[in-house]
């Protein structure tokens, strides 16, 4: 384990994922009329992926273990990537609630909460964030709804109202 570095772990993960995909190619139905079966191209790609990943694995094993990183355990890792984690969580929440809140309310809330999570947390900043969120989303929502005639999700709240 001491010799493992980030690249080695990556190579192993890619090989494992490639293995799963290769197994899945055996479940692709075969068509008698097809000159080139639907499973051929994915297998060609996967063989290429295996060859390259094995080379990457050997390269990483030769390199030896990583130098001491920033450390801090799980909390340190969360601290380092907290902005990205906030964005993913809020974007995920926005998608999850899209059917209830709709694009206008959900989008405005997403922008406001993301700005609040990443930006300063003063009363003035909150007011600016709210204004930015509402104006930017209402503007784009209007362009798509009235200009490009695209029906964006209304959401149950908006529909009921």
């Amino acid at each position, binding site marked *: 384990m001491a010799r493992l570095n980030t690249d080695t772990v990556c190579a192993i993960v890619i090989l494992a994922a490639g293995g799963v995909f290769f197994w899945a190619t055996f479940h692709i139905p075969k068509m008698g009329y097809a000159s080139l079966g639907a499973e051929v*191209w994915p297998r060609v790609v996967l063989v290429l*992926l295996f060859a390259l990943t094995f080379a990457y694995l050997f390269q990483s094993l030769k390199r030896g273990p990583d130098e001491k990183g920033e450390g801090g355990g799980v909390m340190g890792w969360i601290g380092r990537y907290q902005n990205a984690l906030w964005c993913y969580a809020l974007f995920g929440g926005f998608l999850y609630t899209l059917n209830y809140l709709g694009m206008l309310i959900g989008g405005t809330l997403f922008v406001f909460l993301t700005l609040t999570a990443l930006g300063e947390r003063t009363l003035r900043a909150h007011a600016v964030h709210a204004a930015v969120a509402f104006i930017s989303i209402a503007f784009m929502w209007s362009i798509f709804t009235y200009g*490009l005639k695209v*029906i964006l999700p209304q959401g149950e709240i908006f529909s009921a109202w």
Partner: protein
Amino acid sequence: MMWENFTEALYAVFQLKTMLLMFLGTGAGLIAGAIPGFTIAMAVILTLPFTFAMPPLQGLATMIGVFVGGLSGGLMSGILTGIPGTPSSIATTFDGFPMARAGRPGLALGLGVWSSFFGGLISAVALVLLAPLLADLGLEFGPWDYFSLVLFALTITASLAGTNMLKGLIAGVVGLLIRTIGEDDINGIARLDFGMESLKSGFQFLPVLIGLFAFGQLLSDVKDRVQARQPLMKDTGVAVKVEHLEAIKTIFRSWINLLRSSFIGIFVGVLPAAGGSISNILAYDQAKKASRTPEKFGTGIADGIIAPESANNATAGGALMILMALGIPGDLVAAVMLGALLIHDVAPSPTFITENAVLAYGIFIAFFIAHPIMIMLQAVCLRGFLLVTRVPMYTLAAVILAYCAIGVFALENSTHDLWTVLIFGVLGYAMRVLRFPIAPMILGVVLGNMAELNLSRAYATASDMTMFVTSFALRPWSAFFLLLGVFSVGFPWYQKEYGRKKWTLVYIPAMAAALALPMFFMQGSVRTFVAAALLAWAAYALWKRHAGGWKLEAQEDHIAAMKE
């Protein structure tokens, strides 16, 4: 017929709505280009969702506006702050920033803007004249030739891989794999869906692209909490007045530099994977070598701004030329443009210009018109563009993420696509953290279906695989592209070792000689003559290097000059 198509295209582009969209696109490109960290590819990707509901020409004209605006926007931050907005403007800062600091920011901006304008116009003329000629060549291609052409385009991943070739190649192959998920285009069979209903239709191209590139990039930009809250640029000199007349006069006095740099730009644009980031430095280097006062370069000299700015805009014309004539993307932005065409059900190929003449001419005209629009906008709205760069990055990131969601939803009115953005956003960010390049993966995603489709077509016509590799006489174009592909894979090593290892002295003559062989088997006497000339040049170059004792001094001088 050609004239009819041209006038029809002209009419379509000059529609009020199309013109308005081009103004909007060019303005957005100027803003995106002016923001350090925002690449032109990202700006074009973010524009894509807004173009779905539009007719193809309108959508593409908007994106061409973004492309041209982005190329020119990068010079604003480069000249005023010394931080190039895009990699295409790196060399512009060498003389643009010193000139601005010496009290002539207006002239520096004027030189940059007008050089971009003239460089773009020269390449637009080349695009109109040369693309149809290249497309005529393409009409000779058979299925195996097409497949070899796509394989050659895939070898560009090696050049896009950056410092770690293996990681880049793996990323490219994973891109190909992503495109195999879901129903295949040839037989209509669902594959690699793991029994999940949502995966049966596979991943749409655009959500994958936005997730990998835009989502991941935005999160990288706001990774540092303190930096995310700072304005992008503090001292942007909003009171600058551009000296247009003086700039035009200066450029006309340096017309040889302008022409040389524009042709360098066009040539680099035609080459696969060599975009504006290379052409601007190459043109700067050549301008310095040709100058009577090379010692003044780097101190704020006009030629040092004219060369890179005319070259990087000319590169766009070259890249569009090869995309439209042969259907292969020369660089990342061209790959995105290719994706945009596919989304609008237009597949660029050697028959593209013949079959979609109005659209093709429309693209030529839009590229031409985007340049005067860029000049107008930059003259009128410079102050506004610079104000945008004072917005903190986290504000832009939050708003753009929401806009991505709105745009992607509009693709097929499906929340599945939004989840795709999130999943590939996580993958894109993880790849950045683990230092995997994103560009090869995007190329894989764009070209994956084309490669499989062409392999299937070729295999249906003749399933003898050995013929495809060995038969120079029967499929000379196929052999030509395969050989080109082999040398394209080796090109990053050549660039890395250029001037250091002796084998680099043989590389280009060997490539010329190898490419000459299949050309002898092609139709017509012109190609035989070109092949003979290539062979003769290769022999002469090798003899000259042999006579010189295989010395590397000249290259070392060149590298030293480039480093300087």
